[in-house]
């Protein structure tokens, strides 16, 4: 009896049908063109559809059609439709790559990249437009292959792109620079090839050219005083003035990019843009850009962070313009966009990093609730940003000692973050915890009962030294001025042998924190010093060994002479304690 094929479980969906038409050799060329156009119109603007079609293998199908069309170009029987097919398939590929890493990956894996580059010099302007746009989309993703400027042939090609009359092609040149220019060598190579002058010319071009130029200039001058002084040099005309004018351009994105250029110049070189006028202007423009509902509004807070980080004077100007209120208002609006949330919290973190009145303002606006809420956000970047913000706010001694941070809404999610899979979140959470556990009241037991100590001890065994040092730092702070009962509870998790291994850690920074932890441990009533004699004096020996091998002269001479004495009478214990304490006080990081 012949076996029959199993019946189809469901009829093909419209999407599957579409892909089927693209793949089938029986589909007439004209229909393929129509189908490509249909696919393009379905996916543009529609992330969900892009993902769905990616799963159905749309990209390899389209790239294959593009590849055949390119191969046939000039000859073959489908002349009438050949170029439209190239245009539509290039547009489809570009759309898949637009803002979607999975799409970019699929496009690269399918081999579209070299095909598209080949089309840049096509005689049909529309073909050039389509391929240049698609390549630009690819280059906006981190997944795009790195462009090596140091190879002469590549540099020549890039220069030809920047020289093109076609604004999409020059825009592509700009995107390549923005994507791939990172090291100072690359920046200098580009500068020496005359790219800066070309980009400055493009600043007077169309919107696409201006924006692409501003963005690439930013990449070339970032953190490079040498290139910046070239940029400001006489051969580049009044480049700075042109960029400064663009700060007032009617398009928000242009304003943002111009601000970023100026911020890079300001940050890298103290010679330029230091007067009060420009500082205030930058802050006011960014202040207004934060309101933009689109991508510009997402990126503006990052620009603000870049401007004010570590700079108290700028933080003060920003505070005076009510930026804390504005940022908190945006939180209240319930924005879901992860990028925007991350930016807002990082900017707030910078604002609250040094200035107590910023922290006060933030806390008075009841924005703290938003902070604790996003500690459980899906995006690791948002979680990390929230932790950094929390860390900076908890620098407020006034609020720390009032015990505002040592409650369940804060501690519970924070302790949970100690098990986060993402390293940057872990480190940020440890930073926040380190501050919070310095709490001057007796609420530290809350942290201990939440399982916090267990997690910290676990993390102090991490392979990653940054995690280890931050974990021990937190333990050290927890141990600070804590009562005996808590000490006992902590030591239940943190065994003396564990402490010994931390003191002998390969990283100096970990050793330092561990020794300071011991100092806090023995600090307090007289019998606290007993802890140091745990494990039959092994701990004390470890401390002694460490102080010996470290190269701090004053410390060593005193301690060595004491340790050589084997009499463990009480007076020696006392003496040793004081020697240890003093030694630890003088110990500096190597």
């Amino acid at each position, binding site marked *: 009896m012949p076996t029959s094929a199993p019946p189809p479980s469901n009829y093909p969906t419209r999407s599957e049908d579409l892909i089927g038409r693209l793949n089938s050799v029986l589909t007439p060329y004209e229909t393929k063109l129509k189908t490509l*156009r249909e696919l*393009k*119109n379905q996916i*543009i*603007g*529609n*992330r*969900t559809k892009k993902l769905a079609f990616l799963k159905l293998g749309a990209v390899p199908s389209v790239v294959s059609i593009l590849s055949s069309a390119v191969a046939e170009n000039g000859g073959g029987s489908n002349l009438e439709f050949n170029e439209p097919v190239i245009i539509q398939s290039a*547009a489809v590929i*570009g*759309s898949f790559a*637009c*803002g979607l890493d999975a799409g970019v990956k699929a496009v690269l894996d399918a081999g579209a990249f070299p095909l598209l580059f080949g089309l840049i010099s096509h005689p049909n302007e529309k073909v050039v437009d*389509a391929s240049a*746009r698609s390549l630009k989309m690819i280059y906006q993703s981190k997944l795009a292959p790195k462009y090596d400027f140091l190879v002469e042939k590549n540099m020549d090609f890039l220069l030809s792109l920047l020289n093109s009359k076609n604004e999409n092609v020059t825009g592509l040149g700009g995107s390549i620079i923005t994507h791939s220019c990172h090291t100072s060598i690359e920046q200098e190579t580009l500068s020496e090839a005359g790219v800066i002058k070309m980009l400055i010319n493009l600043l007077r071009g*169309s*919107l*696409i050219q201006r924006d692409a130029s501003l963005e690439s200039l930013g990449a070339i001058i970032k953190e490079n005083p040498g290139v910046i002084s070239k940029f400001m040099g006489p051969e580049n005309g009044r480049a700075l003035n042109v960029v400064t004018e663009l700060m007032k351009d*009617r*398009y928000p994105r242009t304003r943002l990019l111009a601000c970023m250029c100026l911020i890079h110049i300001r940050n890298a070189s103290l010679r330029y843009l230091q007067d009060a006028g420009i500082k205030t202007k930058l802050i006011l423009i960014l202040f207004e850009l934060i309101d933009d*509902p*689109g*991508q510009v509004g997402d990126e503006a807070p990052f620009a603000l962070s870049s401007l004010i980080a570590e700079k108290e004077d700028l933080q003060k100007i920003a505070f005076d313009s009510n930026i804390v209120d504005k940022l908190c208002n945006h939180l209240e*609006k*319930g*924005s*879901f*966009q992860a990028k925007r949330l991350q930016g807002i919290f990082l900017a707030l973190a910078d604002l609250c990093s040094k200035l107590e009145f910023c922290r006060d303002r933030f806390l008075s606006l009841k924005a703290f609730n938003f902070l604790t809420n996003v500690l459980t956000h899906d995006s690791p970047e948002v979680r990390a940003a929230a932790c950094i913000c929390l860390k900076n706010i908890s620098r407020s001694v006034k609020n720390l000692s009032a015990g505002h941070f040592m409650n369940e809404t804060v501690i519970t999610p924070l302790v949970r973050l100690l098990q986060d899979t993402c390293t940057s979140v872990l480190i940020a959470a440890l930073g926040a915890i380190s501050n919070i556990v310095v709490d001057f009241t007796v609420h530290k037991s809350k942290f201990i009962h939440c399982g916090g100590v267990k997690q910290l001890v676990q993390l102090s065994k991490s392979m990653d030294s940054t995690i280890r040092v931050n974990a021990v730092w937190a333990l050290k702070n927890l141990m600070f001025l804590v009562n005996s009962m808590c000490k006992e509870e902590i030591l239940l998790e943190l065994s003396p042998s564990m402490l010994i291994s931390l003191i002998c850690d390969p990283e100096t920074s970990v050793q330092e924190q561990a020794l300071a932890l011991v100092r806090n441990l023995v600090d307090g009533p007289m019998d606290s010093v007993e802890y140091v004699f745990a494990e039959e004096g092994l701990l004390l020996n470890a401390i002694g060994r460490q102080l010996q091998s470290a190269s701090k002269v004053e410390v060593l001479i005193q301690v060595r002479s004491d340790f050589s004495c084997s009499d463990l009478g009480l007076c020696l214990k006392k003496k040793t304690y004081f020697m240890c304490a003093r030694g630890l006080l003088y110990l500096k990081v190597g």
Partner: protein
Amino acid sequence: MSYLLNQLNAVRHLAEFEAMATSKKVITREEWEKRLNDVKVRKEDMNKLVMNFLVTEGYVEAAEKFRLESGTEPDIDIATITDRMAVKKAVQCGNLEDAIEKVNDLNPEILDTNPQLFFHLQQQRLIELIRNGKVEEALEFAQEELAPRGEENQSFLEELERTVALLAFEDVTNCPVGELLDISQRLKTASEVNAAILTSQSHEKDPKLPSLLKMLIWAQNQLDEKAAYPRINDLSTGALEDPAV
């Protein structure tokens, strides 16, 4: 139009002059018209303003004719205007699918990088389905195409809910979100897509002429506090009306 420009300039001059005075000065028609005549506005400038208006608003034939008659060059390629006008017209007629296809042919980047505009076009598409009584199709469309957008963005979700609410009412003309069915909603969407296309072509999305008129009205209001003078009250005629003495 030169009349309006002259008026604007005259008003501004007088406002500056009268800044020092404390009581309201009265200016007769004769005096005013003399001042107006002293103001010189170049014909080329006026032509540019007219061309700018025709081109931005998309009056292709008028722009072509004006170009031939006045020798004024448009600051934008007239060929691109035709494409843009086709999109605008499609939206104004309620053919949203057609409009979206045309925008994507013109420049696929526009809708891919402009979530707000894309949402509004899709929303308009939904409105048209509801208007044509295609309830099931509308629901399916809302679920498949619009709901995912709503998930990505809170404000889209609220807009979507308002639009879907149209389906809940038998008599849509009386429902609280009834204005979505107005032609004005179509015009709003059409204007939005027109602006986006202009921006992508590096052209300013608003013509300059309306701004000048606004400035005239504002300047006259300012001067009203200091002087009584012949005013232009009807912009369409540009007629001077004598001051009340």
